[in-house]
């Protein structure tokens, strides 16, 4: 059997009558130029270490051994906040006003389970296990829909995260690790799956995704080794995501995931687990920007997590699960160079349950602002369909250029 690239595979299947699997082989341009990328930082991202409130007089005492200072693990951003040196490579974006942070932000979830917290972050509901669908999938329905069944949403990685699951069909991409499929076999299998409500649509979407990515990427083969290593392969994945988003006929909404933030021990200051993880995050975000090229102008990137970490250092040079944290917002559409916050302070009486950063901003307000700015999503849909029962949560104003 000759080895076929996925591109030839697609054309071959058309000739073999596999068109039922491949509606609209020619890719038409999506009806929007605006891009939205959501990076899920799984494991509880320590906003107090990423954007330390250097100007808060209670900060150094409250953080203890994990406290940073300008020149010692942090760069000053303004009179009140600094940037963790692990993200130093992002400083030029801040200077160019293409990066901002929303601080003291949290989802509506107020307990401290990673898994329930991530569930709330991804379903967009006010409580865990509210839905089997993700808010970003529901949001895709608000975008102008391409006529040809083109997939606007893209999951970068081997599995589709909850945030993108739901009735809107999406594409998925991960580096190839195995030999390509034989077209005749796929055609037969497609028929065998035709009646299967789970496997049938998934196979059709999988083939469609490969068509899209192969057409846009050519025969790029990212190293599988790099991609399976947490952090290490993130930049490679992000670069590919950028290419798939940049193409005129590419995806418009993408999700990436990154773990390594659950820094219970050895979190460190200028060196340590957190600084290492942040370096990987910065490299990935810059790779995404580079690959987006001109499209960066039309892009908003949100890096968000399930909750923050304790204000105080724990007994093992780390931090335990907390509440308020920081979110990264970057891209050409962002009015950056600012830390957007109603800072609650770190005096003991100001903390949430006497241990965590008090949240003063609702994460859904950030997510709504992004959907509104990029896709003109209206308040009724955002407050009922995308984020149910949230009409009282207003989009955070002024984050994006109009």
């Amino acid at each position, binding site marked *: *059997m000759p080895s076929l690239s996925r591109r030839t595979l697609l054309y071959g299947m058309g000739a073999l009558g596999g068109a039922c699997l491949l509606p609209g082989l020619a890719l038409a341009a999506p009806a929007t130029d605006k891009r939205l990328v959501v990076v899920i930082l*799984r*494991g509880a991202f320590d906003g107090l270490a990423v954007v330390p409130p250097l100007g808060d007089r209670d900060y150094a005492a409250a953080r203890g051994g994990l406290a940073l200072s300008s020149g010692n693990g942090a760069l000053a951003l303004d009179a009140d906040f600094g940037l963790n040196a692990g993200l130093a490579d992002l400083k030029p974006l801040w200077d160019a006003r293409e990066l901002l942070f929303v601080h003291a932000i949290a989802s509506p979830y107020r*307990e*401290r*389970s*990673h*898994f*329930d917290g991530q569930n709330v972050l991804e379903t967009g509901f006010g409580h*865990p296990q509210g839905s089997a669908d993700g808010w970003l999938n529901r949001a895709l329905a608000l975008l102008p829909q391409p006529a040809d069944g083109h997939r606007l949403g893209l*999951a970068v*990685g*081997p*599995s*589709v995260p*909850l945030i993108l*699951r739901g009735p809107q069909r*999406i594409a*998925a991409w*991960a580096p190839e*690790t*195995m*030999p*390509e*499929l*034989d077209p*005749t*076999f*796929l055609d*037969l*299998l497609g*028929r*065998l*799956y035709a009646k*299967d409500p*789970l*496997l049938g649509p*998934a*196979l059709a979407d*999988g*083939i*469609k*995704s*490969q068509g899209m990515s192969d057409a846009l990427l050519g025969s790029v083969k990212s190293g*599988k080794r790099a991609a*399976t290593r*947490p952090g290490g392969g993130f930049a490679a994945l992000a670069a590919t995501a950028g290419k798939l988003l940049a193409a005129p006929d590419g995806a418009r909404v993408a999700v990436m995931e990154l*773990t*390594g933030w*659950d820094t*219970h*021990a050895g979190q460190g200051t200028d060196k340590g687990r957190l600084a290492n993880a942040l370096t990987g995050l910065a490299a990935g975000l810059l790779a995404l920007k580079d690959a987006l090229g001109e499209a960066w102008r039309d892009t908003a990137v949100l890096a968000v997590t399930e909750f923050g970490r304790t204000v105080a250092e*724990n*007994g*093992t040079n*780390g931090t*335990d*699960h907390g509440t308020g944290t920081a979110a990264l917002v970057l891209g050409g559409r962002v009015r950056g160079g600012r830390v957007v916050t109603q800072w609650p302070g770190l005096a003991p009486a100001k903390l949430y*349950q006497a*241990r965590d950063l008090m949240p003063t901003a609702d994460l859904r307000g950030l997510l709504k602002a992004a959907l509104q700015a990029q896709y003109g999503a209206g308040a009724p849909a955002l407050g009922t369909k995308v984020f149910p029962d949230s009409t009282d949560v207003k989009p955070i104003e002024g984050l994006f250029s109009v």
Partner: protein
Amino acid sequence: MAAAAEAAIAAGRFGLGARPGELARIGRDPRGWILDQIRRPGPPPAALAGLPASQAVTEQLMAARQGGPKEVKKLVREKLREIYIAEAGARLRAAIDSDRPVVERLVHFWSNHFTVSVRQKVAVLGIAGAFEREAIRPHVLGSFEDLLVAVVSHPAMLLYLDNAQSIGPNSRAGQRAKRGINENLARELMELHTLGVDGGYSQADVTELAKILTGWSVVPKRQPDPGAFRFFQPAHEPGPKMLLGLRYEEGGQQEGLAALHALSVDPATARFVATKLARHFIADTPPPDAVQRLAKSFRESRGDLAAVMATLISLPQVWADPLPKIKSPSDLVISSLRACGGYQGADKPLVGSLMALDQPPFQALQPSGFADQASAWIGPESLVRRIEWVQAAAARLPVPDDIVARGEDVLGPLLTADTKTAIRRAPSPAEGLAMLLASPEFQRR
């Protein structure tokens, strides 16, 4: 349900997928086939012989650490990665070859329930397999409390969830080193291992359990038995603690044992374990009445896991739907190789298969372990990968002379007419085998 279909359910959902001839051996008594394994789990599989004990591996790592980061890197490269591959491979070969596959499935289930992962923690890399052999396997058909104590007192878990470093701030060691508690294990122990997230504990309970567990750690290099579990009184937070409304007087290690006992017999734990078992063996959305029956069995038997399994297979729901679950990648790889009569190759491609399918043994990304629902395993990219794997595997495996007959041998009456037609139309024998393994009925259990 006809006996032949029940035999296929027993082999697929309770076992690890039929080997050729296995359905015939199960015959008309699928419950008896399962019960016999539950009552007589047998000795550990031969494939696991000769693997290193966790203590020896941890001792080596401690020695390397004294030599500095370069020594650690060298040990990882030359030794620990090889141990990991050998452990992961042995675990898979034990499952592929097993004639007591119900026991192997339970080992995998409980190992995932009590996840330790080699991601992010080098200390776990060489001992994750040993953890499963030493703490999980001996107890999967014994008492839940024994299983829990074995897990919480195993160095792999203490290192993975940071308890080994957790020190009572008012203990002698805490005062001297100005160190304190780490609540990681205490939280996951209640959320993921026992009560469940809605099990009625508070942040204060997490902190108190963390104090109770201070001192549960690993013997350092310069003391007798380096690398073994030990309770260190000097690191233990002194004084009474309040956990879930109960007062624990200062009692050293006894406090932790008493707390683990209380957690084991808490009704929330019975409900949580019952829900997970029902999700694994009945359906992604567990039927509430089945969960109730299992929880009742768990409570009344004081957590006798063999009794709970016996209750499980007595439930009519178990036998009502032949294929309610999508196979996890691990299940798919194991059942494919069982259907093809075994695997004689090296460990690396076997473990690599699961790497490619995103479920490498002992590498869950988070302490909640690998998901147990179709939504996590079937997406556009993951399904294409499955099919790619099936096609690649079928090209390398011995193809039976009559593929349809092999399908009937391992799936019994669950093999559909459509799949038989597709197998016969496949362009080559290898692709006919791939069609069987990719078929909707083989992808499910």
